[in-house]
Structure formats: C-alpha cells, structure tokens
C-alpha cells in the first residue's frame, strides 16, 4: 500500500527521477529470473527463512553467525566419462576480492553425499585439491581436509575456511578455490562405464562464504585478526581515537 493512490510498477514510470537513478544501481533486467526449484536457491531460501521472518526482520535467535552469506557456484566444467567405480572431478570456485569492511569468518562447501545417476547409487565426498598433478585430482587420503558433517539426509558440510583464507592472502587476482569432487559406486561394481555429464556436481555442490561487517566490530572495540590490516591502515587514526 502506498499512500492513497495505487501504483503499478514504479520501474515503468519515466517521470520519477529518483526511481530512475535507483534503477541504474540494480543489475541488468535481462538477467534470468532465478528458478526457485534449483537446489542452491532452495538451500539459501531455507537459510533465509531460518534467519529472518516474513517481513525481512532478522530473527533474534538466528544462528547464522554472520551478516552476509554468499553462495558461490562452481564454474562450468567439462565432464569426462570414466570407467570403473570411481568418478573424480575438479570444481573451481571463483573468489571475488573482499568488499572493504567485510571480514571472512567462515567458509564451507556444501554437497550431496549421495547421488543417483543412471540408476546407480553413488557415494560422494569433497576434498581440497592438492597440487600433485596439474589436471587431476587424487584421493588425498583425508590429508589437508577437515571431517565433513552431515547437515541433513541430503546435504553434507565441510569446513574449508583455512583454504579460502590462504587463497585470499596469497593471490591478489584470479582467485580460485579448487576442490575435488569424488564419487564411487556404493556397490563397488567395477568395469561399468559411467557417463558423467558433470551438471550434477554443478548443481549439488557449492561454496558458502560467511562475512561480518568489520565496521560494526570496530565500534564494539573487538580484537581483529590480521586479515584486516589493509582496513586498519586506512583508518588507523580513527581506530586509535575510538579505542581511547
């Protein structure tokens, strides 16, 4: 309800200069409207409903632990048909530079630990990519990866915070987090060729990045980790005054 007069879409009113200015800030309207049925979107909708009410007010008892959460999908990957019981695929997740005054507090990869493909039941897990060969993932025998935890019947979560922070610190451009997505037949049936089209892993595996607003943290005089050096150097005099 908008005052006494009814309004149609304000975006189509050319005589409202402020609305026109605001529309310039919005993403391109040609952008495809997101499909609610897609698994990543469903996951984020559930996260939203747990964290905010129907009016958009953050819930007092929310456990999200961050003021911003970004779901990052893997880049498109070409599938390779494999023989045998095991399928291994590398997934590359682009990492954008942190916005000023936002600190990464947690990073997890969410994936389906059980998949059905062409009638076969597959058991899957994710591991950080270890640079043994430039193109292939090799099972790392659990070295360098944290133990995954079961979120639900469908989703499993694995913490990759240290891996992401390392990529953000060591690479200023073209930051990519590479992970290995590995599945194998639960029955261990050898010799069966399984054509993996690759799209399943793009829809069933994604990265969650949790950020907090560091500006608010500074105002509360909390200790900040070393990753905020750039922010602190810029406003060090202001921080000193506030600390006093």
């Amino acid at each position: 309800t908008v005052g006494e007069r009814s309004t149609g879409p304000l975006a189509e009113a050319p005589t409202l200069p402020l609305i026109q200015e605001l529309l310039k800030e919005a993403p391109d309207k040609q952008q495809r409207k997101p499909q609610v049925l897609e698994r990543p979107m469903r996951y984020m909708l559930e996260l939203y409903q747990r964290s905010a009410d129907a009016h958009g007010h953050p819930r007092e008892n929310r456990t999200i632990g961050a003021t911003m959460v970004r779901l990052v999908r893997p880049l498109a990957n070409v599938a390779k048909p494999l023989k045998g019981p095991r399928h291994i695929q590398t997934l590359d997740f682009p990492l954008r530079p942190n916005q000023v005054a936002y600190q990464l507090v947690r990073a997890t990869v969410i994936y389906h630990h059980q998949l059905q493909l062409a009638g076969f039941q597959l058991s899957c897990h994710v591991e950080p990519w270890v640079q043994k060969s430039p193109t292939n993932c090799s099972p790392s025998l659990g070295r360098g990866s944290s133990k995954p935890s079961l979120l639900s019947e469908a989703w499993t979560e694995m913490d990759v915070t240290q891996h992401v922070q390392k990529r953000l610190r060591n690479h200023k451009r073209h930051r990519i987090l590479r992970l290995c997505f590995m599945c194998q037949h639960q029955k261990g049936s050898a010799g069966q060729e399984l054509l993996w089209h690759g799209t399943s892993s793009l829809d069933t595996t994604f990265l969650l990045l949790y950020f907090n607003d560091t500006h608010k943290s500074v105002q509360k005089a909390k200790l900040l980790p070393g990753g905020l050096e750039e922010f602190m150097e810029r406003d060090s005099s202001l921080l000193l005054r506030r600390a006093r």
Partner: protein
Amino acid sequence: QAGSIASKIPGPSQEHDRPESNQCSLHHFQVSFHQLGWDHWIIAPNLYTPNYCKGACPRVLHYGLNSPNHAIIQNLVNELVNQSVPRPSCVPYKYVPISILMVEANGSILYKEYEDMIAQACTCR
C-alpha cells in the same frame, strides 16, 4: 529579548490545541520490490516497509519526542538571530535492519543484513 519574545510564543495550551494527527509521528509505508522493478534480483522479502516520519514539531520539544536538549536552541536562534537557521524537523530516530536474499550478476546468491533500513520511531531534531 527572550522575555519580549516569550509573550509571542503560543502557550502550552495553545500548542496542545493542535490536532495530534498533525504532530510529528511515524507513518506506515510499504512497497513491493515488484513495484520498484527489482523482483528479478531480490528474492526475499516480497515487501519492504521502511515507514516515514511526518508532522509538525512544536517550539517547545517535550520529552516524548526524544529530541536532544540542544534542539530547542535551533528554535531560539531561528527566532532571535537568523530565520534561515533551520528549525528542528520530524525525522526518524530509531531504525531496525532488514535481511535481503538476492541474486548477483554472476549467479551467486547473497544473504545480507542491511542496517538502518526501517524507521521505527521519530524525533524532532
């Protein structure tokens, strides 16, 4: 000077004669992201209720308006010194945040809490 001016200022009874609906208060205002043409990238919530503040501010700012003590000085300076000095006006005093779920241009999905997006109370300042 203040004494001579005081006789011209409406007394408390005269100010209270002003209809209460005209006094500074919070007004409900709601808009949908569809109306703004943003529903292709903002997934939730569907409606945004920022509200707004509107109404007259009395010359003597009473306790319930949450005005800072200095606000009355603006009125005095406006009357005694320079009429171009702005008098206190009805503006938001307290805000609450809003959580937004949106799709970014690169396909990432973002949950973000924005501070100070909804007015919850008004003041004269």
